[in-house]
Each structure stands twice: as structure tokens, then as C-alpha cells.
């Protein structure tokens, strides 16, 4: 009952529209592609952070950058706001270089950290970042008021930001990056550390932005976020785009069998067993094996025979439809949350 009441309250105060769209920046060239990244290379010391990344964000779409920590997602985002000196390649925002004033005006950046002034109130934070984006006077006050409504913080606009809950700070963090009405929004892990209820509200805000025609680059390592929000997904690993497409395209291209047999063994696999399974297109991590299966009734007995002949003891076994997670595991050989 308590849970039900909470959910009902949250729904009541859900923002109904993304008001700052009224001030959407007119400087952006309407026909230009929001974001083009071509063959971008960047190293930090000996470590290659980006290794020939090429991406294009289409108008009005949400493109998800999915990858484990350290894959290069944040470096891609920082290169779009001109904070990374590229060794090779180019980045264009509405056809302009990232440090161009018009490009900057058309981009909103929501950092992974809660980059707000903790001692200022939500209204003061929004005013500060609005001014940094060139808003003044009535348009600024209007955008601040609308952003407070949008984030559901209108009744707490005078409190110190440090006193807000984690979810509220996250929403304010998004509003601080969108107060000037950007046409291209960079969301860098906007739901990290947020409880499921607050996450729902943030999803609502992002979907509203999409309805207003904002193109969004969305980095995350939450699979369900990428599946739910993103029109297309780029899987990033070791600084490379290893797959790009809609969820269905990725699954079809990576796992044409559309079903995955997952087997867990009691002990790690012997090299002979691993070799035999890889011959059947399996991906192996420690003692877990995923094998694409087209005709389960015919193929599964053969696969089990391989295990039996090796003497490996099976602890668990499941047959599943391929998901984004299985695509990721298949492509990288790793769980996403490593």
C-alpha cells in the first residue's frame, strides 16, 4: 500500500512538458547533422582511449553509447565539447568544430558528476549556468522557472542544493545542462547512483526532450536504459565502436541464431573443451558458456555430449532469446558491469 501511494505521488508531480524548448537555440544550422565523429584517435600516455571512433547522431534520435567503465565513452563526450585534444580525426557539431561559439551554444552537456554549486539554491544554480550560456533578463528568469517546474523542484527552489536528495540533484544536473534549450544534448551516465523511482522520472524527462526534437547522445552502462531509451546503440570497448545499430539489428547481426544456450560448469573449462565449444561459435567467460542455437531440439544433445565426453560437470543450464546483454557478452567476452 505504502509503495503504491509513493508511486502515485511521483506520477502526480511528474513534469508534463519540457518548457525550455521555447528558448531552443536558433544558432544551430537546421539541416546540418547534429553530430559527426570521424576516425577519432586519442591516447593518454601509453593507453589508447579512442582508437578510430566514427559515429553519427541523426536529428532527433537518441544514440546510446554502451560500454564498460574505461571503454572511452566519457572521452568521446568530452571531445564533443572541445575538452580533448585529438591526435587524429574530427568532430563536427551541426557542421562546426566543437570550440566554435555557435556549436557550443547548441550543445548541452550533462556531466557524470553532479556538477552544481552545493551552497547555491536550485534556482541560483540554474541562473548561473543560464548566464554562462548567454541567457539574461526575462528569458533567463522564464527558463529558470520552467526548468524548476520541469524538474519538480519549484517548491524547493530556495533550499541549498546540498540538502536535496540524490535523485533531485540528478534532475537539477540535467536541467543545468538544458536551460539554454540545446539542440544536441550529451548525457554522460545521468542516472548513476539513482534509485529506481527517481530513475523513472529522469527517463520521463529524457523522453520529453526527444519529443521536443533534441538529439541526444546517451552514455550508460545500464543495459535496460539503452534498450528502453535509445533508438540506436553503439557498443564501445577499448576505445573502439565494435557494433552499431538498433537493438534488433545488433542482435540479428551478432547472434543470428536468436537463441542462446547458457551453460555454467562447476569448474573452469579445460582448454580442450573450450576449443571444442568455440568451434561451435561459443563465447566463454570463466565457467560460463554461451552458444548460439538455431534448432534447440537437435543441437542441445550434441552440445551436452561434448561436455559429457570431457567430464565437465554442469551446474546450471538455460535457453534464452538473445538480448542486448548477450550481444555485449558475445562481442566483448565480458559482462557489462565489470
Amino acid at each position: 500500500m505504502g509503495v503504491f501511494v509513493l508511486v502515485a505521488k511521483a506520477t502526480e508531480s511528474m513534469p508534463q512538458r519540457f518548457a525550455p524548448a521555447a528558448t531552443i537555440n536558433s544558432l544551430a544550422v537546421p539541416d546540418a547533422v547534429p553530430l559527426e565523429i570521424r576516425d577519432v584517435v586519442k591516447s593518454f600516455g601509453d593507453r589508447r582511449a579512442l582508437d578510430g571512433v566514427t559515429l553519427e547522431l541523426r536529428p532527433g534520435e537518441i544514440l546510446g553509447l554502451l560500454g564498460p567503465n574505461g571503454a572511452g565513452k566519457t572521452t568521446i563526450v568530452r571531445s564533443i565539447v572541445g575538452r580533448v585534444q585529438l591526435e587524429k580525426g574530427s568532430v563536427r557539431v551541426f557542421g562546426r568544430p566543437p570550440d566554435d561559439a555557435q556549436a557550443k551554444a547548441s550543445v548541452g552537456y550533462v556531466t557524470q558528476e553532479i556538477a552544481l554549486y552545493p551552497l547555491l539554491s536550485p534556482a541560483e544554480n540554474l541562473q548561473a549556468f543560464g548566464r554562462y550560456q548567454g541567457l539574461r533578463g526575462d528569458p533567463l528568469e522564464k527558463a529558470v522557472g520552467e526548468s524548476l517546474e520541469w524538474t519538480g523542484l519549484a517548491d524547493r527552489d530556495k533550499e541549498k542544493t546540498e540538502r536535496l536528495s540524490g535523485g533531485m540533484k540528478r534532475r537539477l544536473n540535467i536541467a543545468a545542462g538544458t536551460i539554454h534549450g540545446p539542440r544536441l544534448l550529451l548525457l554522460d551516465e545521468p542516472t548513476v547512483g539513482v534509485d529506481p523511482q527517481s530513475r523513472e522520472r529522469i527517463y520521463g524527462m529524457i523522453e520529453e526532450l526527444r519529443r521536443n526534437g533534441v538529439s541526444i547522445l546517451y552514455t550508460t552502462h545500464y543495459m535496460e536504459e539503452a534498450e528502453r531509451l535509445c533508438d540506436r546503440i553503439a557498443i564501445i570497448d577499448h576505445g573502439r565502436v565494435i557494433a552499431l545499430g538498433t537493438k534488433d539489428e545488433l542482435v540479428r547481426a551478432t547472434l543470428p541464431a536468436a537463441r542462446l544456450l547458457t551453460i555454467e560448469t562447476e569448474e573452469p573449462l579445460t582448454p580442450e573443451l573450450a576449443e571444442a565449444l568455440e568451434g561451435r561459435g561459443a563465447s566463454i567467460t570463466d565457467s560460463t558458456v554461451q552458444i548460439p542455437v538455431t534448432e534447440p531440439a537437435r543441437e542441445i544433445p550434441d552440445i551436452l555430449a561434448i561436455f559429457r565426453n570431457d567430464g565437465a560437470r554442469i551446474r546450471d543450464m538455460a535457453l534464452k532469446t538473445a538480448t542486448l546483454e548477450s550481444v555485449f557478452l558475445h562481442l566483448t567476452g565480458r559482462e557489462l558491469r565489470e
Partner: protein
Amino acid sequence: MILAVARTHFAKLKRDRAAFVLAFIVPVVFFSVFASIFSGSSSRAATRQISIAVVDEDGTPNSRRFVEALKREKGLRVIDVQTLPDGRKAPIVDAAAAEGMVRRGDVPLALIVPKGFGSAPIRFGPATGAPAIRLLADTADPIAPQVVSGLVQKVAMTSMPDVMAQTGIDQLDRWGGDLTPEQRARLQENVASLRSQTSGGTAAGAEGGLVPVEIRDVLGEKMENPTVAVFAAGLGVMFLLFSAAGAGGALIEEVESGTLDRILSTRVTMTQLLLGKLLYLSCVAVAQLTVMFAWGELFFGLELHRHVPGFVVMAVATAIACSTFGLVLAALARTRMQLVALSNLLILVMSALGGSMFPRYLLSEKVQKIGLVTLNAWAIDGFMKVFWRDAPLSALAPQVAFLLAAGVVLFALARRLARRWEVA
């Protein structure tokens, strides 16, 4: 548990190598600065010379002997030419010119040998009516008049022993009964012998107050509380430096919190960001100085209301210079620990050398010259001109020019250092 807490902090200190090194360097450097200023420096102290403008209004052989002996005195540097406002050099013709030099701060003291001095330079008895030597003093250095007064006694007696003996004989003759012609002849012979031995000038040993000296404080005499201006200027600058360094730490906070990342993705450039911070820091610094000087006026007799234009000019120039210094420190330090260690080191050394902790006239000339590289020295000199010398605004040009030039150079340095935050 206690050990666990301490261990964590040691681990953090070990990771922050620069802070680790600075934590040990700061006290050692600071100790060295003080040690080299004050200890083992009996020889340095002895080499401290007091500059003094001398005017001989008497022009008699005795007064000339006296002035020549002053020039030979090691503790004094006698200056008998002045630099006019147009840059020309000219002799110091009268007491008014010498007083002008003291007021401008060219010399801490002027010595006037008055008319009639030569007839009775030394007194053993009651006042003979002969005028006293006048010392026109800038008591910003309260020690110099006392030292010079003593040196005058020494110089007079060692340079004119014959005059001293003659005066003694006259007194004896006058008060002790008539001398026989034979006694008189032998005494005169002895006086002649003393006169012939005085070419050496300033033989040591004579002491006492036999040469009348009148000290006049030409600058502080009209002030309610003259020393407060000196303290306010010195301490004010030191605290501005500390508070600018602390506030500059906000830049490190911005890096840590990610707001810097966000700001630099907006239309704000790094130069604009630093200029914005400079404006903020300078406004706070001017407000701090105003509060401090107003407090001085209310409770310690500092005459702020009489010096508002000069105060404003110096406060703004000092605030800008100190704020840019704070920005450089913040841009230089990579962690808060480094910032604290670095600012303690630099600000304490600057304050010691620049006159914020003790007057620079206590230091040897060499160290005084080194002190001129500090913001403190120039700011204090400027405030002293305003509050102590009642100098016109135009007289602040060197101090304001130095502080603003330092501000420009330091800002350029901070901008250069901040490049590491702009792009990776």
C-alpha cells in the same frame, strides 16, 4: 582504530608528493629566511647605514669639521644633493628642502646644523643660548632618530676634542676661579695639540648628551595615532594574500566537483572564467581592506576619511595584485594540501621580506633590496605615502605601476598554468 585513521592520512600524504615535500620545505625555508635576517647578523646589523640629509646653515670652520666628520661616520650615509621632481640633481640648500626630502620618504632623517652652532657646539653647563642641532625625522622608522642622535654626540666630541676641551677650560675659568697665566698657557698648548690630532675623525669612546640635539617628527606630529597606519598597511596586505590564496582554492573545488568541466563546455572561455574570478577576488579584497581601515579609524585613530582617494587607488591596485597571486597559486597547486603548503611558504616569506611582519628598515640593505620583489613592499610603501606622508595621488605612480604590472604578469602566468584544465 586510531592508528588506522593516522595510517590513512599518511597514505594520502605519501600519494601527494608535492604536498609531502612542501610540508617539510616550508618550515625549513621560513626558518632560513628568518635566520639569515636576524641571526649571525651582528655583522649585517653593523652594516646597516642610515641615510641622512645634511644642511650646514652655519658655514663656520667648526660646523664644516662637524659635517665632514659625519660623512666619515660608518653608520651614516650623508646625502647632500637631492633629486628634484624634474629629475635634476641639486644641492640641499636649506632646511625646507631637507624637510621636503623627509616628507617624500627620500631619507628617514635630515640634520640641520643651525646658525651659531660653530660658536658653541658643546655644552658643559647651562644653556649658552647657542642653537641645537635639529633632526627632522620620519618616525616611520622610530629607531633611526635615536641612533643618529647618539652618533651626533660621538661625532661632535671625537671630531672636535679641542672645542670640547676649550669649552671645559672656559667653564672652569668661569666657575672655578681665575686661572694663573701659566695654567692658561699650558691648557692652550694642550688644546692646540688636540686640534692637530683630530684628522682621524670619529675615534670611538665618547658618549653623553653634550651636543644639544632637537628631534622633530615632521610626519607623525599631526597624526592621532601614527603607528596604526604602518600596521594596517603591513597586516592588510598579508591577509589579502592569504585570503586570495584561500579563495583561489575555489578553482580546485571547481575541478573536483566537475563544475569547471561544465562551465568550459558553455560559452565561457578559460580567460573569461579567470577574469571573472579575478573580479570577484578583487572586490572582496577591496572590501576587506576598507573594513580593516574603517575599523582602524573607529577605534585606533587611523585617519581614513582624510585619505579616501589615495586609499581607494592603493586598495584597488593592491587587491588586483594580491588576487592574481591567489589565482597563480590555485592554478599551480594540484590539490588543496599543495595549495595550503605553497601559499604558507610564499606568503610568509613575502610578508617577512616585504615588511608585513616587521619594518624593512630593520633589515640589511641587501635584504631590503631583495624585499622589493614582493607585492607587500610596494603596497606598504604606497599606503605609507598616503597615510604617513600625505603624498599626492601622482606620487603613488611607482607603487601603482608595479602592482598593476605584477597583476598583469601574474594573471598571464595563471592563464598559462590553467591550460592543463582546458584540454586533455
